[in-house]
């Protein structure tokens, strides 16, 4: 084996890797026993690699990261399925049937009332559901926002990039749309995504920031202006660049 071939192979054989035990590895080792120059090359490469590797893995970790991760994981764990505890066995007695029917009607009425009331939403579940619905559904399956609240963008920067009428999403499984989502398209930043609006009254854990802040979930930035909570979702391009561009201006 010549020096040039040996050096090409030396570089690709990681230190201690099984590759050294291959036929190529053995040929290189054989060459090394005879070539002092290649031995010094190997020593140089290994020295540099070790030095770089030691620095590469030494990354300081932000304070509180572990707690934030665990808290987010707990939030994202899906709620347990609700199983009805009530069970009415079939009985011949008319009185029992009537009682059962009354109870069922009351239950249905209760459920109907509950369904008509908007539920409080958590930021994590909004981001989860919105990402899933907006990014996984074909555009023709997204329905136009039903106007369950006034969804308007007053900030000029954002209204300029949200040109089409919003689509609506149901997140709580009850009647009506809970959020309005505007398509965001900014060719100059190669950015494409969504701006989601939710009235602050619907959120149980409001983001405290009033400027777009990259945050607690993948590919999203959230903020609130006192009236709405805004969540910007990225489908393409850097959300960080967009946030940097718009920093300081709430929608």
């Amino acid at each position, binding site marked *: 084996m010549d020096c040039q071939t040996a050096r*090409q192979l030396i570089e*690709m054989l990681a230190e201690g890797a*099984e*590759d050294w035990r291959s036929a190529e590895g053995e040929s290189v080792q054989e060459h090394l026993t005879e070539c002092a120059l290649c031995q010094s090359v190997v020593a140089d490469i290994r020295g540099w690699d070790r030095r770089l590797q030691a620095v590469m893995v030494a990354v300081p970790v932000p304070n509180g*990261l572990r707690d934030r991760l665990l808290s*987010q994981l707990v939030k994202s*764990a899906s709620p347990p399925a609700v199983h009805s505890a009530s069970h009415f066995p079939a009985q011949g007695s008319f009185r029992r049937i009537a009682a059962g029917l009354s109870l069922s009607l009351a239950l249905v009425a209760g459920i109907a009332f509950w369904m008509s009331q908007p539920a409080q939403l958590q930021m994590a579940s909004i981001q989860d559901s919105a990402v899933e619905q907006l990014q996984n559904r074909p555009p023709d399956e997204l329905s136009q926002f039903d106007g369950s609240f006034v969804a308007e963008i007053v900030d000029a920067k954002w209204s300029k990039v949200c040109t089409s009428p919003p689509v609506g999403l149901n997140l709580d499984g009850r009647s009506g749309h809970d959020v309005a989502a505007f398509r965001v398209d900014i060719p100059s930043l190669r950015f494409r995504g969504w701006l989601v609006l939710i009235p602050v009254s619907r959120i149980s854990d409001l983001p405290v920031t009033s400027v777009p802040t990259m945050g607690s979930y*993948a590919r999203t930035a959230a903020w609130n202006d006192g009236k709405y909570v805004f969540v910007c979702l990225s489908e393409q*391009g850097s959300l960080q660049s967009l946030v940097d561009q718009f920093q300081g201006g709430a929608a």
Partner: protein
Amino acid sequence: MQRPLAPGMAELVEEHYRAVFGYAYRLSGSVIESEDLTQQTFMLAQSHLAQLRELRAARGWLYTIARNEFLRRRSASPLVALDDVSEPVSPEPEVSWLDDELNSEQLQAALNELPVEFRVPVVLFYFENLSYRDIAQQLNLPLGTIMSRLSRAKSQLRLKLEKHLLEPHTSRDSQPPSA
């Protein structure tokens, strides 16, 4: 209603979050994005925990999730050939050089200058300590492509870092990033 974490999840976080964050930081070069990637990695791990058969393979599995997520986010960005990467016109990122010793920020500044398709194999090589063959397999690329990319990226990295190490220490007083 909140539910407790899946069995073993807290231990998985405890044992690996530092490594996953470090890995994400070397790939992305941004503390914010790394935290986001780390969070997303553990979220995905939680929802696919059944796929993890052996605990000793957990770290590699988490790295793969983090890398895939990073590459998925970058997939919309056009690829740049290393030859097309010009020298930055803006001043070099402020880093604190420590005499002739390499430091973390110095290395990251040099990594950030590599295009993603060159940076990723470098991180797999140095951070995960994978062989060229393993890297080719992980990235689903021919071995020749990996050899070529790693050879050029490693040379570029060394040139850059050695150049800095030999330069006068102009930014010794600057603060390291808030990692």
